[in-house]
C-alpha cells in the first residue's frame, strides 16, 4: 500500500470517530452547548483542555523553533505551561464558583457594567479570531502536504468537519471530540520521539535522552555537548548558548504565562466541571497532558537538529564534520536512508544549491557579512539587476577570501566553499519529517498527519465556541434581546457558530497578512486585558467599574499600538513606524514581550482610577465574597 492511501485511511478513520462522537454528544440545552452541562469528569476535561490548548503551532512548529533557537526558546516551554499554575491558583476555581457561561459575563457582573462586558467581548473576539486564522491555515497546509489536495480544498474539508461537531454538539460535542483528538495527537507525537531518542542516546524516554549520553560515541560524551560541538564547528550558535537578552526573555516568558491564563477559550474549559474542587485538579490534569508533549518537544527539537546536521556531514556522527566530505548530491538521490531529504525538497520546505559545483552539499552558517551579501544577491537576482549582481559577486569573492568559518580557523576560500548550500530549512520539517528520518513504518507517518489535523481542529473548535458564545450569550442575550427563550438562544448560538466558521474559513483562505503575528497579538492582548481584570475582580473588593474599564482600555491600546509600531498598523505591510529589529525596541523589549508591560499598566491604571472614584456597591462585594468560597456552587444559573 502506498503512503498516500495509508494517510487517507488513517485520517479517514479519525474523522469518522469525530463525526460519531458528534452524533452521540448532541447538545440539547444552552447549558450543554456552552458548558457541556457541567458534567465533565476533571481528568477528561484536562485531556480536552490539552487538545484545545495544543494547536497546530505546538504540534508542528514548536519543536522546529526549539531546534534552531536552542536554550532561549525555553521561554515558550515555560510560558505555555506556567500559565496553568496561574489559572489553577488565581482564576479557575473562582470563575467556576461564579457559575456562568462566559468570561465577559463575569466581567459584566463583577464590574456591574454593560460597557465593561462589551469591552471584554471585543477583546475576546480580537484575540480568538486572530488565533483561529492560524489554525485554519494549519488544517489546510497539513491536508495539502499529506493528502495531495490543494490548501484551499483542505481548508473546506476541515471546516466541514468542525461544523459537524461544533454546531450540533456545542461544548459537549467539542469536549468529547477533543478527548479523542488528544489521544491521536499525543501518540503521533511521542512514537517517533521514542525511536529517535533510542537511536541517538540509547534511552527510549526522550526526557532522559535529552540529558543522557550520545550513543554513537559510546555514551561518554553528553548528547547536548555533542550537539553543541557539531553546530559550533559549522559556525552556528551553540545550542545551549546563553540568551542574548535575559531581560526580554524574562518579559516574553511572563507575557506567554499571563497570556495563557487570560485566553478565553482556555478559561471556559473550567466551566464544564461539576465542582470548584474539580476546577483546581482539572487544571493539574490539563497540565499533565500538556506536559507529555511539552517535555518531549525539547528532545524532539534537539535530536532532529543533530540528525539533520549529521545527515549533511556524515563524519560528524563520530568525529568532526570536516574530518570527511559533506554529503554528496548523488548519495541524496540514490541512498534509501536519505530519501526523506528528496521528499522534503519536493515540498519546498528544504532547498539546496551546489554553489561551488563540487557535487557535495555543504551545510554551514555564513558569518554576518557573508549572509548579508547572500541576501542582497538574492534580491538583485529577483529584480534582474545585472549590474548590481556583478558588483555583489565581486564583493562576495573578497568576503570568501577573508571571512573565516568559526572554529576551523580557515577562510571560506581555503575550505573551497562559496557559501551555505542548504539554502532553506523550514522549522516545520523537524516534526513532519521525523518518522522518515528515523526510518519508521508508513503508518507512523500517516499518524503524524492525523495528529497534526487533530491538533489544529481541536484548537479551532475551542476558539469558535468562545467566539459564538460571546456573540449569542453576551451580545444577543446580554444586551440586544434579554428576553430571548432558551430555545431561541440555543438556535442563536448555533447560527453564531456557523457564522464564525464561515468567517474563519474566509480568513483562512485570504489571510490578511498577519497569520504569523498571531502569537504577539493574541497573547499580548490576553495578558494585557483579560487576565488583569479577572484577577482584580476576584482578589480585590475595591476595584470598581471605572477602574476596570480604564485598565482594560489602557492595556488594550498600549499593547496594540506598541505591536503595530513595529509590525505595521493592523499588520498591513509597510505601515510600521520603526523597523522590527532589537536596536529599535524601547528598553530592548520586543513586541512579543510587551503584553507583560501592558498588564502592569492595566493593574496600575485600575488601582489609581478605582481609588479616586466611588467604591463598588454592597451587592458586588457580596458577589466577590461568595465566589471566594466553594460552598454552594451547584449548576450554572441561567439568570
Amino acid at each position, binding site marked *: 500500500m502506498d503512503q498516500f492511501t495509508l494517510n487517507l485511511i488513517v485520517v479517514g478513520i479519525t474523522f469518522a470517530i469525530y463525526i460519531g462522537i458528534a452524533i452521540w454528544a448532541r447538545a440539547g440545552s444552552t447549558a450543554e452547548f456552552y458548558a457541556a452541562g457541567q458534567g465533565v469528569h476533571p481528568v477528561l476535561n484536562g485531556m480536552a483542555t490539552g487538545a484545545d490548548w495544543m494547536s497546530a503551532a505546538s504540534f508542528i512548529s514548536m519543536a522546529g523553533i526549539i531546534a534552531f533557537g536552542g536554550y532561549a526558546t525555553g521561554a515558550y516551554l515555560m510560558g505555555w505551561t506556567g500559565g496553568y499554575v496561574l489559572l489553577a491558583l488565581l482564576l479557575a476555581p473562582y470563575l467556576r464558583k461564579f457559575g456562568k457561561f462566559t468570561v465577559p459575563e463575569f466581567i459584566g457582573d463583577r464590574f456591574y457594567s454593560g460597557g465593561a462586558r462589551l469591552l471584554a467581548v471585543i477583546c475576546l473576539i480580537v484575540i480568538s479570531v486572530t488565533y483561529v486564522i492560524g489554525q485554519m491555515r494549519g488544517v489546510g497546509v497539513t491536508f495539502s502536504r499529506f493528502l495531495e489536495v490543494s490548501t484551499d480544498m483542505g481548508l473546506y474539508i476541515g471546516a466541514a468537519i468542525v461544523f459537524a461537531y461544533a454546531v450540533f454538539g456545542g461544548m459537549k460535542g467539542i469536549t468529547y471530540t477533543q478527548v479523542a483528538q488528544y489521544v491521536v495527537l499525543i501518540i503521533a507525537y511521542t512514537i517517533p520521539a521514542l525511536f529517535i531518542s533510542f537511536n541517538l542516546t540509547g534511552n527510549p524516554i526522550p526526557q532522559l535522552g535529552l540529558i543522557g549520553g550520545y550513543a554513537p560515541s559510546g555514551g561518554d560524551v553528553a548528547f547536548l555537548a555533542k550537539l553543541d560541538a557539531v553546530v559550533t564547528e559549522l559556525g552556528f550558535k551553540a545550542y545551549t548558548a546563553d540568551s542574548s537578552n535575559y531581560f526580554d526573555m524574562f518579559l516574553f516568558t511572563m507575557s506567554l504565562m499571563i497570556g495563557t491564563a487570560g485566553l478565553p477559550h482556555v478559561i471556559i474549559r473550567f466551566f464544564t466541571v461539576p465542582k470548584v474542587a474539580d476546577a483546581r485538579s482539572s487544571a493539574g490534569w490539563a497540565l499533565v497532558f500538556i506536559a507529555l508533549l511539552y517535555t518531549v518537544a525539547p528532545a524532539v527539537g534537539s535530536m532532529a537538529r543533530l540528525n539533520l546536521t549529521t545527515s549533511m556531514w556524515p563524519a560528524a556522527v563520530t568525529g568532526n564534520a570536516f574530518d570527511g566530505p559533506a554529503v554528496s548530491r548523488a548519495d541524496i538521490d540514490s541512498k534509501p536512508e536519505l530519501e526523506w531529504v528528496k521528499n522534503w525538497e519536493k515540498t519546498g520546505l528544504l532547498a539546496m544549491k551546489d554553489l561551488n559545483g563540487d557535487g557535495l552539499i555543504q551545510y554551514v552558517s555564513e558569518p554576518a557579512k557573508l549572509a548579508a551579501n547572500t541576501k542582497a544577491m538574492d534580491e538583485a537576482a529577483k529584480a534582474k539587476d545585472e549590474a548590481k549582481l556583478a558588483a555583489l559577486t565581486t564583493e562576495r569573492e573578497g568576503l570568501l577570501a577573508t571571512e573565516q568559518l568559526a572554529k576551523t580557523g580557515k577562510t571560506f576560500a581555503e575550505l573551497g566553499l562559496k557559501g551555505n548550500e542548504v539554502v532553506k530549512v523550514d522549522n516545520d520539517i523537524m516534526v513532519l519529517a521525523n518518522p522518515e528520518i528515523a526510518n519508521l513504518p508508513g503508518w507512523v507517518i500517516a499518524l503524524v498527519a492525523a495528529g497534526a489535523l487533530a491538533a489544529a481542529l481541536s484548537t479551532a473548535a475551542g476558539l469558535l465556541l468562545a467566539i459564538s458564545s460571546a456573540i449569542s450569550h453576551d451580545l444577543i442575550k446580554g444586551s440586544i434581546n434579554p428576553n430571548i427563550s432558551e430555545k431561541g438562544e440555543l438556535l442563536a448560538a448555533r447560527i453564531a457558530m456557523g457564522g464564525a466558521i464561515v468567517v474563519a474559513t474566509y480568513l483562512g483562505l485570504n489571510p490578511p497578512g498577519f497569520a504569523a503575528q498571531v502569537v504577539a497579538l493574541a497573547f499580548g492582548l490576553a495578558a494585557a486585558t483579560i487576565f488583569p481584570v479577572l484577577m482584580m475582580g476576584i482578589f480585590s473588593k475595591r476595584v470598581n467599574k471605572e477602574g476596570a474599564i480604564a485598565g482594560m482600555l489602557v492595556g488594550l491600546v498600549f499593547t496594540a499600538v506598541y505591536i503595530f509600531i513595529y509590525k505595521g498598523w493592523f499588520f498591513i505591510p509597510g505601515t510600521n513606524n520603526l523597523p522590527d529589529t532589537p536596536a529599535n525596541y524601547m528598553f530592548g523589549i520586543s513586541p512579543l514581550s510587551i503584553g507583560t508591560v501592558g498588564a502592569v499598566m492595566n493593574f496600575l491604571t485600575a488601582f489609581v482610577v478605582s481609588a479616586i472614584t466611588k467604591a463598588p456597591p454592597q451587592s458586588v462585594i457580596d458577589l466577590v465574597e461568595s465566589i471566594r*468560597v466553594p460552598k454552594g456552587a451547584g449548576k450554572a444559573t441561567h439568570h
Partner: protein
Amino acid sequence: MADNSSSNAYWKANVRIILISLAIWFACSFGMGIILRPALSGIHIGGADLGFWMAHNGSIYVFLGLIFTYAVLMNRLDREHGVEE
C-alpha cells in the same frame, strides 16, 4: 456560607498558600531557568546545566507539583472551614 470571621480566616489561609506557591513558581522558572542560569552553570542534571534543564524540562515538573499540591491543600482547608461542596 460560613460566618464572617471563619470565612475571613479561610481566605487569608488561601492567599498565604497562593503566595508561597507563586514564590516557588517564580524561583524555578524565572529564577533558576532565566536570571540565575549563569550563576548555576556549575551544577549539572545529567548532560545539561541546571538552568538549561529548568528552562526546558524541570520547571514543567515543578508546575505540575504545585497545582496538585494546591488542590490537596485547598480541599483540606475547605473541610477545616466547612466550606466544601
